[in-house]
């Protein structure tokens, strides 16, 4: 009989770990030998960022059943926190040119800034969670959406300029490219600009998975399944919802910091509702309640929208035949159709609520059954 007194680390879990490590290794090796300008790396960096935010959104929407649309707002908080605390002091005069160099005149290491980014986002989540989490479903979504819009407007406010640089962009802070190791003459010796974001996402997603599988994760799922029953089992709704909201926002903040590093510039105007919808789309396509699904669909989403469908934006010749319809913007049409088709055929997303270890276990069981029938 299976021993359930300890949650077993079975072979499926180990295989999953091996797959993750293999992906990291492969991207590291590819990075060293493929041209640095390859779209693959751009896509990997951006999808690492989006995957983290999508998983954090899934923690809230998929695992706790709280429908929040404040993701872009928390990413903005994270991105700005990161930027504000990492722009080199020497460059501040250039960046905050209208604000006399700005208020903050010190820097912290990038990883500290990233942690701060998460904490600031979590702190704001705590504050707005007090009123907002009392609301249910659609109302909560609208209120959180409103929060994100207010934050976006607030950060462009002139009076906050000495901190946020007003409506001007933050720049010159360390980006992903600064992870590359260079020799004295400035040539890159070891490329790390793709591996590091992937590692950050792996670490953060790993922590979220650990949380989901802990006793607190079970309590969150209980709340999602049936609030009344969860409360009757002694689970305090308010504190657990707040926990999920703050943790989710923490990682959205870290994701925002990653986006800042990816873009190398930050401007409040970029954190629109559309960004939240993109993340929501990733979560839905991947499967609401599946971390694996969110990661997978983040990559597919970014790759399809930025890379694989690029050819649709230009004239293409098949021999002497010019393919009709192809022109600038056509990519978006095809992309939208693909999304509709995916949603039609995968009603519950690519993965449903399954995770990678579940798939491996299912595959093994099928093999075992086949072997038994022979």
């Amino acid at each position, binding site marked *: 009989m299976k021993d*359930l*007194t*300890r*949650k077993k680390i079975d072979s499926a879990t180990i295989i999953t770990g091996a797959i993750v490590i293999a992906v990291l290794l492969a991207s590291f090796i590819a990075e060293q030998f493929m041209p640095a300008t390859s779209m693959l790396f751009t896509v990997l960096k951006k999808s690492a960022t989006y995957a983290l935010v999508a998983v954090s959104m899934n923690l809230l929407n998929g695992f706790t059943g709280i429908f929040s649309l404040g993701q872009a707002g928390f990413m903005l908080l994270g991105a700005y926190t990161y930027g504000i605390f990492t722009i080199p002091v020497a460059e501040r005069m250039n960046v905050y040119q209208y604000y006399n160099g700005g208020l903050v005149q010190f820097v912290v290491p990038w990883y500290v800034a990233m942690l701060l980014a998460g904490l600031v986002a979590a702190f704001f989540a705590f504050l707005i969670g007090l009123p907002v989490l009392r609301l249910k479903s659609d109302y909560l979504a609208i209120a959180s959406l409103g929060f994100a819009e207010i934050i976006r407007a607030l950060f462009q406010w002139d009076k906050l300029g000495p901190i946020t640089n007003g409506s001007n962009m933050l720049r010159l802070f360390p980006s992903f490219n600064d992870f590359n190791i260079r020799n004295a003459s400035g040539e890159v010796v070891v490329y790390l600009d793709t591996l590091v974001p992937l590692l950050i996402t792996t670490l953060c997603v790993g*922590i979220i998975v*650990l*949380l989901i599988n*802990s*006793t*607190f994760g*079970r*309590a969150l*799922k*209980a709340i*999602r*399944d*049936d609030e*009344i*029953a*969860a*409360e*009757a*089992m*002694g*689970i*305090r*709704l308010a504190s657990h919802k707040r*926990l999920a909201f703050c*943790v989710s926002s923490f990682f959205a903040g870290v994701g925002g910091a990653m986006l800042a590093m990816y873009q190398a510039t930050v401007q409040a105007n970029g954190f629109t509702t559309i960004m939240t919808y993109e993340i929501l789309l990733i979560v839905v396509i991947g499967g609401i*309640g599946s971390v694996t699904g969110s990661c997978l669909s983040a990559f597919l989403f970014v790759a399809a929208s930025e890379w694989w469908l690029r050819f649709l934006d230009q004239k293409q010749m098949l021999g002497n035949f010019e393919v009709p319809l192809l022109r600038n913007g056509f990519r978006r049409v095809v992309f939208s159709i693909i999304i509709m088709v995916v949603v039609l055929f995968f009603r519950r997303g690519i993965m449903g*609520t399954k995770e990678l270890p579940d798939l491996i276990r299912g595959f093994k069981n099928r093999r075992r059954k086949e072997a038994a029938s022979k």
Partner: protein
Amino acid sequence: MSENVLHIDHLTMRFGGVVAVNDLSMDINRGEIVALIGPNGAGKTTAFNMVTGVYQPTEGKISLEGRDITGMRPDEITKLGVARTFQNIRLFSSMTVFDNVLTAHHLRRTSNFLTATFRLNLAEEKKMRQESEALLKEVGLWELKDEMATSLPYGKQRLLEIARALATQPRLLLLDEPAAGMNPQETEELGAFIKEIKDKFHLTVFLIEHHMNLVMDISDRIYVIDFGKQISEGTPAEVQDDPAVIAAYLGVDEEEESNGEVGA
């Protein structure tokens, strides 16, 4: 000997103009099985919901083991030792049988979310799992531990709900129509089961039930309410012979009633 567990003092619940429970007073002592019966819509579940904190009573007071629990949240009341099942089964539908019971151990955690996330609570987690295993073996659901809770047959789902309630380690167990939808044989087994767990887990049981055989068989005392008002109270034998109870359940013959009035 007869230590008071639950004391309900002049409880009234109004929903707008509707009086669901009207001036209800009850006492339940340790080790008793007490039933609350009454026709449909009499206010039984409303009374349960007030005891478990789902509703705040309009008037009146509820004390658990001498402590005032009126107005407390459901989770606080559960932590004080009151567990319940639901009339329309409310299992955690996305979870297995095992996880349903495991989740009900969450309230006794000493870990916080950080220690739990980073697995610094292994001893606690192991204890939760061991206790869940023991409990599922106790109620005979261990073989089904990996099944999805909602894929179980109806009777087993009711059983699982009781097991999940027991996992919170209550002293007072509230069962809301535990035999609903069961056939006579299952009902009989349920009666034996309730008595068994009552002794094994040192429980006091407070139940709502429509199966009169079950109620008469296992209850020490019965309260009867109709239109939110208590109309009778006593041992099964006493209640069965009470004209007021018979009237509430069977209705009063109009002719007889008018005759009575003439006679009076």
